[in-house]
């Protein structure tokens, strides 16, 4: 679970950086950030280990994006990895549901609530780190407007996750209904 979430996260991150580079506002801040949907999905599917895989991937491959500060290098990947897992614990009930039951409980309202809360935690956490420890990014971009960065990051995470997860849901619905209708499957 750890390895697969690590690989999936890296693939989605690089695919997004390649496909939506035009929507990048600051380094690592994108107005359309589809991998946030992967964060939510991996946390929902694999729970704590999915979140740990994302954190590990961020720690190994995305260091020094915003800061040379050792604390920022450690804390930023933790926020990135565990924001969706933490949001899941809050919005779906702290410790109330086992890993198997959280997917059963998931309806549209829970999913959108989870996406919104995780985007909020992630962007707020990143902006706090940027404002306190992010010296490198501040130097390279002169004056960084923290509120605009926060808004752009939150919007990117929110829209990216909504688009990705609902596209995935539609694909599953379309292929699911095709599989059901297909007489060759013998069912």
């Amino acid at each position: 679970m750890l390895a697969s979430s690590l690989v999936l996260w890296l693939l989605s991150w690089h695919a997004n950086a390649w496909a939506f580079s035009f929507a990048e506002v600051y380094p690592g801040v994108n107005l359309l950030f589809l991998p946030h949907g992967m964060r939510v999905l991996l946390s929902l599917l694999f729970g704590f280990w999915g979140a740990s895989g994302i954190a590990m991937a961020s720690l190994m491959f995305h260091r020094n994006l915003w800061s040379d500060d050792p604390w920022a290098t450690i804390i930023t990947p933790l926020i990135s990895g565990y924001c969706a897992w933490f949001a899941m614990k809050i919005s779906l009930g702290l410790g109330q549901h086992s890993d198997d039951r959280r997917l059963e409980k998931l309806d549209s309202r829970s999913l959108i609530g989870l996406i919104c809360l995780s985007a909020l935690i992630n962007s707020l956490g990143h902006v706090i780190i940027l404002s306190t420890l992010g010296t490198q990014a501040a130097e390279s971009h002169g004056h960084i407007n923290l509120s605009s960065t926060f808004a752009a990051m939150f919007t990117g995470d929110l829209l990216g996750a909504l688009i990705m997860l609902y596209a995935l849901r539609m694909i599953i619905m379309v292929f699911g209904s095709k599989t059901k209708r297909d007489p060759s499957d013998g069912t």
Partner: protein
Amino acid sequence: MEPKLTDRENTTSRSGILQDSARSGLCFAIWITASLTHEWFLGFLHYRDGVDLLYLPHSLRIALVLAFGLSGVLGVCLATATLILFAMTPDFAGSDANLQSFIMTATQVFIDKPSTLASLILQALASGCCGWLALRILVPGRQASYAGMMMNLDLRTILSVVTIASVINSGVHVGAWLLLDADLGDASARFSVMLTGDVLGGVLGLVLIALSTRLFAREGKMT
């Protein structure tokens, strides 16, 4: 017997229309008051005109629909249109201004640039209908019992309804501004700040409204 029944029906429908109009008027007044109060207290959070990093009145777009249904939608639509009209015609604040000059100025603006009228209608509709649309998408078939939902608003409902309403509102607003000025340089920044402000303000406001409603309900039971 028939004319009597018709009279009663007419009276009932007339009083229903009157009640709906009174509700819309109340929502109109609430929205204008909330917008002006927000401007006064939290004006420092402005990014551009109509774009704030924390927009508390967004919670009212949903709360008024929950409390008053479609009358709330109409009230907010009309109030938004009125506020935009006032913003478009700054001369109205002058000492020698009157209603006639206000209407003349507004009409002249619409004749000179018809896209202004389209933009105004779009913004008013987005502002009034976003909460109702979000509720219709996420809580379908429960329009009759929206008022009951106010008492049982949980975090996931607040977050999801506010998110969808914010996406609709900020998306349509930026579309309406692009109608006015196709070369709007900071459209993406406006969209992101407006979306963030609506979500933050909407969630904060609705959490406060839900908590106060529960508190009042508990107080009411105790007395």
